[in-house]
């Protein structure tokens, strides 16, 4: 069976060329072949959200896409949020608000909330709660995540007000 293919994509801005089994999921490709193990796998059927990554700017389930499907695409994972050791504003807010305990769900939660913030500059707590419904957390709960996300949105707006030419988060 002709079961492998070559793909070209970018992952966190870096060009990647790889030969993948056609049945390999995007999440397994990131974890096993690129050793980007920040992307977690919980349920592998789309329910828990631990595997959430961005493909061409849209948050998707990494367990429900095939690696071959990102040929030509730009992929962003949790490893692409920080700038070296400098946490992103959302990551920093998670830290300040104690929005993680074991951290298993956190990569997926961060990628979902980052995508949400990219599209909503002035969300309500209700908006955040609804956007968070596709990510399951088994230990921290959700209140601190909502608080951290709202704080990031608020800080973003303030930052924007102070320097209107800075152009938001730039991504």
């Amino acid at each position, binding site marked *: 069976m002709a079961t492998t293919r070559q793909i070209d994509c970018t992952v966190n801005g870096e060009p990647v060329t790889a030969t993948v089994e056609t*049945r390999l999921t995007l999440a397994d490709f990131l974890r096993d072949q690129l050793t980007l193990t920040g992307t977690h796998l919980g349920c592998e*059927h789309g329910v828990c959200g631990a595997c959430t990554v961005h493909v061409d700017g*849209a948050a998707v389930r990494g367990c429900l896409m095939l690696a071959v499907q990102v040929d030509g695409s730009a992929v962003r994972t949790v490893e692409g949020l920080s700038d070296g050791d400098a946490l992103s504003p959302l990551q920093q807010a998670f830290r300040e608000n104690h929005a993680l305990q074991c951290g298993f769900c956190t990569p997926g939660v961060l990628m979902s909330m980052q995508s949400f913030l990219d599209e909503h500059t002035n969300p309500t707590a209700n908006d955040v709660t609804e956007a968070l419904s596709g990510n399951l957390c088994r230990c921290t709960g959700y209140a601190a995540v909502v608080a951290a996300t709202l704080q990031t949105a608020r800080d973003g707006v303030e930052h924007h007000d102070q320097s209107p030419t800075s152009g938001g988060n730039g991504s």
Partner: protein
Amino acid sequence: MKPPPFHYHDPRTVEDTLHLLSELDDAKVIAGGQSLMPMLNMRLAQPGHLVDINRVDGLAGIGWYEPEQVVRIGAATRQRTIEKDPDLARRYPLLPEAISHIGHFQTRNRGTVGGSLAHLDASAELVAVASAAEATLYAASTRAVRAIPMADFPRGHLTTDLTSDELLVAIDVPLWPDGHGYAFEEFARRHGDFALVAAAVLLELDTTHRSIRRCRVSLVGLGPAPIRLTKAEELLNGGVADDDALRSAAALARNLSAVGDDAAPAEYRLALAETLVRRGLRRALRRATQPTTPEVN
């Protein structure tokens, strides 16, 4: 929890896709993958060939046909595209309202309109809408393109009228006059879960705004196929639009037969059906009486 091996094809044209589907044994189309990938991961599906339609030209998009008064939606149009489309929000708001209940924004970023209809889950929101809307589905094969009325599309549990060499290419949704009433109501245990029961309602008032010119009510979650509550429609069409009429119409849902399970027995589903239809009719009537600009998110 990993997909079984398969031959992978990613055609670029509808024509190539149809040839693959007609020539290959045991081929399965993959669109958004939000239902098929879980089945592959759990090995409930083990197709010999996977035909990926994500790179096929011309399968996605929204087209307005004014002379025919229909909106045509390409099968591979993402659910999220429908949810955020400003023209649909204005002219066919039932669609974005229904779609906002499908899974989560991450699954709607991938999931397609055609995939949801072809999968035909017993409580799929889009199945309820296609039924209430009297949509026409277009299925193409190397033999022909045929039009299938939504009423003839379901053939059983997760089973449609599509043959294994057919590709769903588009659906046509007949338009309703601007300012018509609409509502999508569902009950699910948690936000984003599949509905236990859901109701889609379309409603048009006459020029006096006192009586109902026509309405449509469809339910999912009561059995393998959507159910049109035609008895309620007949009762309401041409009649005075007051709350008593809406209540009596909704109560007719109790006479339907439903397939239940341990978690949600038939009786319970029918009780939900009545409540959801009543809420839906009320909301649709309110919206028809006071048309407002629907929110886009």
